[in-house]
């Protein structure tokens, strides 16, 4: 390429990149604040033992929408994203037919339970669609209210231990959660007893009845909360793996209205009938 050609190409890329950045910055939850709004910010110190508030992904509303799998290990087919499946875990993974990733099938032929308004459960709610969430602290619980499908969880912090996972424990879509402060700025919870029908993420990573999920909230400063999620499932995975690594959330004005996002079976039925099935060239599948 000539110098003139290179210059033309560079100029075009620069213009389009600026254009694209401009667009990206305009996509935002109305009324929300992002780190990009405060370029020279020097946040104050983190309050002690306080993670309450309305939180939004600090880098933008799409930062933690993870269509192709858990943020830190999306299903790209690349070696660094391969999960440490056991033979049993690999077998369970093949049963799930996701609508995204290298194994994707048309959405009308997927057996993903979530789009049909089945409970997505824990931790999929944040390994798929981590949107605006509100955390409420009471003396004995941390409550987390999620915008995505309008769900909530309670994490006990009254000193109780999680129940023993055995054949007598009732499975729960959202599991049993207990948490504690490991220091003044870090709250750690563990969840067990999650119903095996739920997927860990949007590409169908499975979990067994023995799975334990650790979520770690680190209050980095006055306006940031970093969230880490680790999966420990010795039946399906040979070692623990980090699904979400220090995802930064930003504290929002306490007046921010979390808009409704609800899964309606009748709306899904219509979407499937009028869009998904014609898109796949099929009829009457996955109702």
């Amino acid at each position, binding site marked *: 390429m000539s110098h003139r050609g290179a210059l033309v190409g560079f100029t075009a890329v620069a213009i389009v990149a600026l254009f694209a950045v401009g667009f990206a910055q305009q996509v935002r*939850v109305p009324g929300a604040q992002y780190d990009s709004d405060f370029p020279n910010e020097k946040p104050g110190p983190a309050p002690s033992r306080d993670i309450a508030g309305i939180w939004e992904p600090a880098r933008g509303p799409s930062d933690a929408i993870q269509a192709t799998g858990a943020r830190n290990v999306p299903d790209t087919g690349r070696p660094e994203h391969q999960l440490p499946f056991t033979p049993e875990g690999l077998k369970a993974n093949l049963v799930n037919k996701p609508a995204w990733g290298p194994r994707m099938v048309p959405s009308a032929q997927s057996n993903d339970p979530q789009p049909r308004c089945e409970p997505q459960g824990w931790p999929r709610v944040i390994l798929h669609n981590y949107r605006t969430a509100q955390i409420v602290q009471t003396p004995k619980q941390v409550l987390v209210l999620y915008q995505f499908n309008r769900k909530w969880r309670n994490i006990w912090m009254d000193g109780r231990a999680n129940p023993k996972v055995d054949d007598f424990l009732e499975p729960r879509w959202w599991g049993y959660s207990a948490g504690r402060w490991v220091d003044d700025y870090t709250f750690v919870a563990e969840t067990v007893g999650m119903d095996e029908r739920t997927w860990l993420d949007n590409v169908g990573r499975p979990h067994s009845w023995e799975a334990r999920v650790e979520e770690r909230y680190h209050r980095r400063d006055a306006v940031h909360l970093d969230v880490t999620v680790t999966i420990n499932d010795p039946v399906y995975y040979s070692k623990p793996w980090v699904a979400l690594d220090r995802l930064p959330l930003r504290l929002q004005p306490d007046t921010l209205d979390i808009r409704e996002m609800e899964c309606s079976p009748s709306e899904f039925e219509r979407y499937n009938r*009028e869009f998904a099935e014609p898109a796949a060239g099929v009829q009457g599948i996955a109702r």
Partner: protein
Amino acid sequence: MKQLLTVLVATAGIVSGVGPLLAHHGAATFDTGKEVVLEGTVAEWVWSNPHCFLKFEVKEKDGRVRTWVTETSNPPDMVNRGWSRRSFKAGDTVKATVEPVKSGNPVGRLLEVTFADGRVLSTRGGPAPTAAP
């Protein structure tokens, strides 16, 4: 200048393809990267989960009218892009850029819409947000 425009258009196509639509219900059915521009009349704008979709009628060369069904993302995502439940009304004339499906059915992802008065709505980005409700 012609050379610059050519590169600009090509680069715009690459960049616009980098930022996927927020749709989260599958990409397997789409003819990824292909775009068609259709002119038609809005039949219905369905504002619902899991995804909103626009139905519009396109007159084919042979005179037949074909109804296209094109999806966007969910209502909160569309609000983040400046769309609303009242973005369209039946009878609106639109020019729609669509990523079609592979099956050949008149179905696809709605990438951009231009109204008769020149207004543009895009799923790739959006106008500045309105005040918080």
